[in-house]
């Protein structure tokens, strides 16, 4: 176990400088696009520029939660703990991205609508998804044994991921009956805005990849510590 864990960490240890550099370049380009290149939206003004990172963070958060689902299913099939590591890493990073969505949403809403929080469909669903995966992370802290933890959290991860489309549909239908101001609507969409949005999405996906690999490495280290502890107890 111990040697296995070590080689595993060794393989995953390097988050190469070029990849980080690439992500930073992408981020810089996306920021330039979002802050300067894209035209100022006529009705909402400068604050509409939050839109690019607000929406792309939500999309990226989704991708992370889909990775939680993939990791959970793969763990149940293979029982290889590395899939559990992928799940927990993706869940944490996804929660971070949805935190961004939840923080930038009100900052956008305040100048445009005069209120911090509106219960619009997208913001509300994001809030619910955030809560859902926070409870996934809470569950993980309450189970000690790694295999057990991986198993129960995989089950819950699958259920939570399956809940995502249901949350969206229900809130969307609910809001069509009880209209609210809409956050996350870009207003009149210029072609350049579309490109900038895509660029921002690419950049946030890059950030996501780096963060997940970083967090995955943390989990691998933890397994290594466990392996050492086990070896120590075996020798004792």
């Amino acid at each position: 176990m111990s040697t296995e864990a070590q080689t595993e960490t060794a393989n995953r240890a390097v988050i190469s400088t070029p990849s980080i550099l690439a992500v930073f370049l992408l981020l810089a380009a996306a920021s330039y696009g979002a802050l300067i290149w894209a035209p100022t939206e006529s009705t909402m003004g400068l604050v509409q520029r939050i839109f690019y990172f607000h929406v792309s963070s939500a999309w990226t958060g989704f991708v992370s939660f889909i990775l939680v689902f993939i990791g959970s299913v793969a763990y149940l099939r293979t029982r290889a703990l590395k899939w559990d590591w992928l799940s927990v890493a993706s869940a944490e990073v996804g929660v971070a991205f949805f935190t961004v969505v939840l923080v930038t949403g009100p900052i956008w809403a305040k100048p445009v609508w005069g209120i911090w929080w509106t219960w619009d469909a997208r913001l509300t669903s994001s809030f619910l998804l955030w809560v859902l995966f926070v409870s996934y992370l809470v569950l993980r802290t309450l189970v000690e044994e790694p295999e057990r933890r991986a198993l129960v959290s995989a089950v819950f991860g699958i259920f939570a991921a399956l809940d995502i489309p249901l949350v969206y549909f229900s809130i969307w239908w609910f809001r069509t009956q009880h209209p609210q101001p809409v956050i996350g609507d870009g207003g009149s969409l210029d072609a350049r805005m579309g490109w900038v949005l895509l660029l921002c999405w690419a950049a946030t996906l890059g950030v996501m990849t780096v963060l997940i690999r970083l967090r995955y490495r943390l989990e691998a280290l933890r397994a290594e510590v466990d392996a050492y502890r086990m070896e120590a107890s075996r020798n004792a």
Partner: protein
Amino acid sequence: MTLARAAGVILSKELRTEFRSRELLGTTAVFVLIVIVLFSFTFNPTSSESRRFGPGLLWLAFLFAGSLMLQSSFLREQTNDTLAALRLAPIDPFSILAGKITANFLFLLLVEVILLPVFAVLYNVAILPVLAQLLLILALGTIGLAATGTVFSAVAAQARLRELLLPLLLLPVLAPVLIASTEATIAILRDPPELSLVWLTFLSCFDVVFLTAAWMVGEYLLEE
């Protein structure tokens, strides 16, 4: 041994144990009753307001009740490690879950049916003309609650702080059920009553998705 027969055997065991003491049912019913009474203080329950807010708080009370009641579903099996006894039997592991989901569905539905008239009287809502449709909504919503609740009860039974954990896991996942069944109930209590097919279809989808999920992961969940 077919899945259905094994599930039936387990279901009848659950019913027999519960109806012998009726502890769980009684306690849950009283809990919902308390919540319904306390809610009446949070707004002025005139008839028109009740129709708007009543269904929501009723369903909220049911969800809370479910998240408390379903705790014991798997905890009870830990007393003498009877879960191991069930897993020793040559049956499909899902039949254990299926039996328990059905039992919990019946328990919850029973509590709901008992408290529905109380709710109608206290909040001055006429339910008799739309009773059948209301029962359909109750049943569809409760299937989703029982399916996810039973699975999460097995999850929470393996963790620390399980009493707190089950509501924490269950309630966010059940938010769509809360929305759908509340909206459907509001629609049916409206004047004139309206059976909202969108929400009924949605509830059925929820039930199908999570029953299937329970079926797929059931065998892993009960492992030791």
